[in-house]
């Protein structure tokens, strides 16, 4: 894998560190009752988020899942506005209406985290149709988990994107478990790229722990989409270090399995080594980066904590435009 220039590479590394620190910090805060309604920790899956988003342009669209802090941070939203959202404060990305699961800002190309498995891919497909209708040079990425591979509408969206050659990239953030259910136990056939190919979509099973590999496949998919060659499907194999929701453990996988992934495949460790090996940084620089990340997350927590609660009277705002009743 050819490594990008120093600035880009260090940016990728730092972004992954931000995600990890954000998640581990938020996890603890959630256990202490600071985060309303739980949170889905993405630790371990940083390379998917950062690999994908670093291959996109700022105005490309994403739509994602219930586990979306990492995608949202990688899209360029600040730790502050996401932490504040977890605290359901008015300064949060969704104004406190969404919490962990419903991060989004349509006006900035983030078409939402989603409480419903499979919903994000459909919306991303629709955004791709919008892009095509307007003739814009953009792509739309729909994130989905391995669990969403068995949800029928995922395949409706895949098929529609194929026949209409939409600029869509479906990214499976495949952490191998849906809550406690191992992907292999509920997924007929097993080979997800083959499934997608059955619908005529260009499809790849890739290493989701390698940020450069993810970035490469997504860049290529983006190029194809912009060239009018239609959608792609990227199944990125990764691993979730924590429970499905905060505080959950369960017997559905062994500690050994978790430890093996952490010790041999960790995306941050791996890419740190690559960066050092390439002479882009030494251990001191890495430590410094980690410290600056720490400070950023501390600041985000302080910001969130100091942010005001939303005004509850606003629950009646933004339900509809009210304009249908107005004479035009």
């Amino acid at each position, binding site marked *: 894998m050819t490594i990008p220039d120093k600035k880009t590479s260090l940016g990728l590394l730092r972004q992954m560190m931000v995600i990890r620190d954000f998640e581990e910090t938020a996890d603890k805060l959630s256990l202490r009752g600071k985060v309303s309604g739980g949170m889905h920790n993405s630790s371990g899956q940083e390379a998917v988020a950062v690999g994908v988003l670093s291959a996109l342009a700022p105005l490309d669209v994403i739509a994602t899942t219930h586990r979306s802090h990492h995608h949202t941070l990688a899209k360029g939203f600040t730790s502050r506005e996401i932490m504040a959202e977890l605290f359901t404060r008015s300064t949060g990305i969704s104004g406190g209406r969404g919490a962990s699961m419903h991060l989004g800002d349509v006006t900035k190309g983030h078409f939402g985290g989603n409480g419903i498995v499979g919903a994000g891919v*459909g919306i991303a497909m*629709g955004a791709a*149709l919008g892009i095509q*209708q307007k003739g814009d040079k953009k792509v739309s990425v729909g994130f989905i988990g391995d669990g969403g591979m068995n949800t029928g509408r995922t395949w409706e*969206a895949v098929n529609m994107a194929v026949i209409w050659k939409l600029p869509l990239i479906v990214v499976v953030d495949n952490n191998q478990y849906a809550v406690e259910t191992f992907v292999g136990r509920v997924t007929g056939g097993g080979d997800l790229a083959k499934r997608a190919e059955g619908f005529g979509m260009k499809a790849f099973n890739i290493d989701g722990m390698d940020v450069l590999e993810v970035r490469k496949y997504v860049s290529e998919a983006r190029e194809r989409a912009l060239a009018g060659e239609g959608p792609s499907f990227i199944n990125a194999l990764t691993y979730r270090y924590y429970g499905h929701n905060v505080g959950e453990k369960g017997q559905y996988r062994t500690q050994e399995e978790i430890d093996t992934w952490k010790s041999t495949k960790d995306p941050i460790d791996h890419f740190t080594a690559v960066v050092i090996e390439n002479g882009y940084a030494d251990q001191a620089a890495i430590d410094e980066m980690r410290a600056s990340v720490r400070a950023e997350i501390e600041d985000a927590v302080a910001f969130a904590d100091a942010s005001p609660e939303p005004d509850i009277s606003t629950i009646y705002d933004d339900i509809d435009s009210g304009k*249908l009743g107005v004479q035009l």
Partner: protein
Amino acid sequence: MTTAPTTAPKVQNPNYSEAFQSGVREEMKRNPGIFILGTDLIERGGHFAQVKGIAQEFGHERVKDSPISEAAMVAAGVGAAMYGCHPIVDLNFIDFAFGAMDEILNQAAKIRFMFNGKVPLVIRATSGVALGGAHHCNSLESLFASTPGLSVAVPSTPMDVKGLIKTALRAEDPVIFLMHKKLSGIRGEIADENYFIPFGKAKSIRTGTDAVIISYGYSLVTAQKAAQTLEAEGVSVEIIDLRTLYPLDEQAINDAVKKFGRVVVLDEAPMFGSITAEIAATATERNFSSLKGPIVRVGGARAPISANPAMADAAIPTVASIIKAVKQVMSY
């Protein structure tokens, strides 16, 4: 208030579907972001010819024939609307919305509130009880109207079809646009391109002095027949066409209740839990002292709709059942 037509209609005596075409065409000319997707729209122009000729006029990029993928069809509309287009998703029969309920009720309806986005989307479908059997005769008006974030149009004339679809295509909300199967054949005047009917404005379609029937859609046809018979018997009935179920014209409902005190609310959905319950309950709560007796609801049977024509007819309000209800309120 509705605006009077400013010039003569361009299509002579169009039918219900042609009225829809007319409104859509005008708005498509004006707004390049409007496109239509659905099944079998290009050749036949949809099962009710509701978009006939539009693909030929505007091209296949703006009228897209879809696979039978209702979830993806609506999702396509939602995503494209969020992106800035104004799609019309044609679901053919409203029953097929069952395959896209999350997309409609959980996504489209809530995005504005949740994610700082607009969803200018029309979901058009043919609705209502008719022949064809139980799977194609679900009455979902109350479901959609009761979902925060959705608006629901139920036009009963070509004039209203055109006026309401044009309004929907100028607004920025998800609109469920229901056209009744048994109104497909009706003809009438339509207005020119500057005529818009606001949502939430009911219309009196028959004036009367003794009692009022509040209704919408095909039930109005049955109501008119009942009113004629009653007229002959000396009972003068006003009929109000709600035209949209959300927003509801509360003002018109309150005024009618206050004026007559004898009120029948009518539709063809199975009565238990239908929108007539909402109308009757709220109207009663707001205007109790004006009522001469309880509001009487007339609705469908709690039964799936049979394919046998006589059985299908028996499951929805008849002229006789409406007359009975009016006589009931006249007895107060």
